[in-house]
């Protein structure tokens, strides 16, 4: 740390510029990955239709080649082709579940943050207690009772992931309430509802959008984890979790691509979301950026 302090300020500025620029390159790459992923999963049925139940038993466990970019699985199905559709399902489930969780968390956090005081204390204690439940176990319970299906998976993810959103919205509202512009609005005669909708919500919404975006990777992991355990989406459906689960047997016979390639898709896409969200957070809160690039 001593050498850092001794460094001339000019050099430090140059270094931080450089760091920012390299950060931008990462963000551009992440944006491209995400663009390809979203466009691919939206356009796939038009450009590259898939018969979910088709098998080719004369082409099982072929290694990756130009004909099959990620090889074929134990039923001769093209792994890359199914992975595109798996990503489509995962992103859909992830986005819908993240929205459900955001609405739930936003309502609870909103009530706690606007009313404050005793209601806030009790609500947040309840949130802390629910946070102590292993959410994978709770998710497994929900899916097991509702029988595995798309709706059950979305419910399972949505009902277990709203806690962090509630905390973010609540703390944001509490810190906003003490700002002068809110006092000014109240002394100007604005009612509770007007303060909430005109003065508080516009500040909370960007945070809420960021929290939703950051939740999509978690929702995707949760969905793939359930499918991997055989408790998620119907087994014939090409989903990333199902493919990793199906590929386990092939993996043990040396055909690693059937399991690892769909997983690599999850890793790349969630990494891209994380990089973009980090950049977005830096813009929302310049103080953190200054710290990061010190």
């Amino acid at each position, binding site marked *: *740390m*001593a050498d*850092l302090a001794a460094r001339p300020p000019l050099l430090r500025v140059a270094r931080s510029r450089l*760091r920012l620029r390299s950060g931008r390159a990462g963000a551009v790459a992440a944006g491209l990955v995400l663009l390809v992923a979203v466009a691919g999963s939206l356009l796939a049925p038009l450009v590259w239709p898939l018969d979910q139940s088709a098998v080719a038993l004369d082409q099982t466990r072929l290694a990756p080649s130009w004909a099959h970019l990620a090889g074929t699985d134990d039923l001769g199905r093209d792994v890359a082709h199914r992975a595109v559709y798996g990503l489509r399902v995962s992103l859909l489930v992830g986005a819908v579940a993240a929205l459900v969780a955001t609405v739930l968390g936003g309502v609870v956090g909103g009530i706690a943050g606007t009313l404050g005081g005793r209601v806030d*204390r*009790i609500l947040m*204690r*309840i949130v*802390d*207690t*629910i*946070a*102590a*439940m*292993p*959410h*994978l*176990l*709770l998710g*497994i*319970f*929900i*899916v*097991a*009772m*509702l*029988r595995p299906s798309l709706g059950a998976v979305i419910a399972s993810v949505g009902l277990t992931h709203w806690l962090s959103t509630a905390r973010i919205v609540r703390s944001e509202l509490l810190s906003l309430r003490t700002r002068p512009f809110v006092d000014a609005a109240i002394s100007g005669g604005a009612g509770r509802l007007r303060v909430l909708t005109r003065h508080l919500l516009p500040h909370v919404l960007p945070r809420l959008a960021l929290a939703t975006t950051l939740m999509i*990777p978690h929702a995707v*992991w949760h969905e*793939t*984890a359930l499918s*991997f*355990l*055989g*408790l998620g989406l119907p087994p014939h459906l090409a989903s990333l979790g199902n493919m*990793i689960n199906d*590929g*386990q047997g092939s*993996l*043990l016979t*040396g055909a*690693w691509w059937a*399991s*690892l390639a769909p*997983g690599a898709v*999850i*890793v790349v896409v*969630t*990494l891209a979301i*994380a*990089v973009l969200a980090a950049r977005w957070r830096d813009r929302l809160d310049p103080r953190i950026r200054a710290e990061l*690039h*010190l």
Partner: protein
Amino acid sequence: MTRSGRLAGAGAVVRRRLLIAVPVLAATSVGMFALGAASPVDPAKQYAGAAAFTASEENLAQLRANWGIDDPLPVQYLRWISNLVQGDLGWSTSRHEPVASVLAARAGWTLLLIGVSLALVLVASLLLGALAAYRRGGVFDRALRAAAYAVQSMPVFWLGLAAIAVFALALGWLPAGGLTDVTATSTSWSDVAHHLILPVGVLAVSQAPWFVLFVRDAVAESMRDDHVLAARARGLPGRTVLFGHALRTALLPFLTLVGTHLPELVGGAVLVETVFSLPGLGAVTVAAALGSDFPLLAAITLVTTAVVLAANLATDLAYAAADPRVRLDG
């Protein structure tokens, strides 16, 4: 505050925590029970398995009557919850044995997996996080953070499968799963330890990023504290300043956060056990879910939650006892 005063404070904290935790757990159990009751699966047919196709309707009705499934739901709930509170966890319909004996036979392996992984993660993250914070923005710091973000985006079961592909199949160093060799006739500790290296390593690596990043930020923060600057000014060697002064300040808040991260570890352990076919709680949980085994699933979920809550409380109290400046607000 005097020592006895602080102890009395601890009693009040425990009371306040229970005052919230008990109603929340009760409400959760009602919710879970309602979900179980709404489930389209008939527990009698579930229990009978393939025999349900040949069993007479009278036999099935007899089963239902024995279990009191036809009683009104509130009666059933009260019976279930009062048995649960008295320590009777019920009868597992998927494994055909008492839930308590399933837990007793399986929980040990899961605790072993979680315990060893957690110890490994703590040691590694304190060491690596502190080293990264020492030269913030340096090569090691940036490499470690990049690695942490990369690992953070890998699902733990995928990491496990990749580890099997590399270390068990390609290199042949370690077994791909199970607890003992296929040829083994008895369980020896060295065999079990050999089989646990990969699962423990995978769980530890997958959980490490969160801990490493937290330690790194906390130590970087405390490197700027007055007492650390003073230690530097006295000319103490860098290692002493880092581990003796900066890390020590950052250590206490870190320990309470370990408690809040436990649920993640439990979920990770379930997935790792499935990947490596270990005989822990993970495998029974999945089997119970496939068989819609309400008593076993509900018991596992509620018991682990109670354990995590107790662990959180214990770490918070230990924190307050170790640092007199801390006041717990409930």
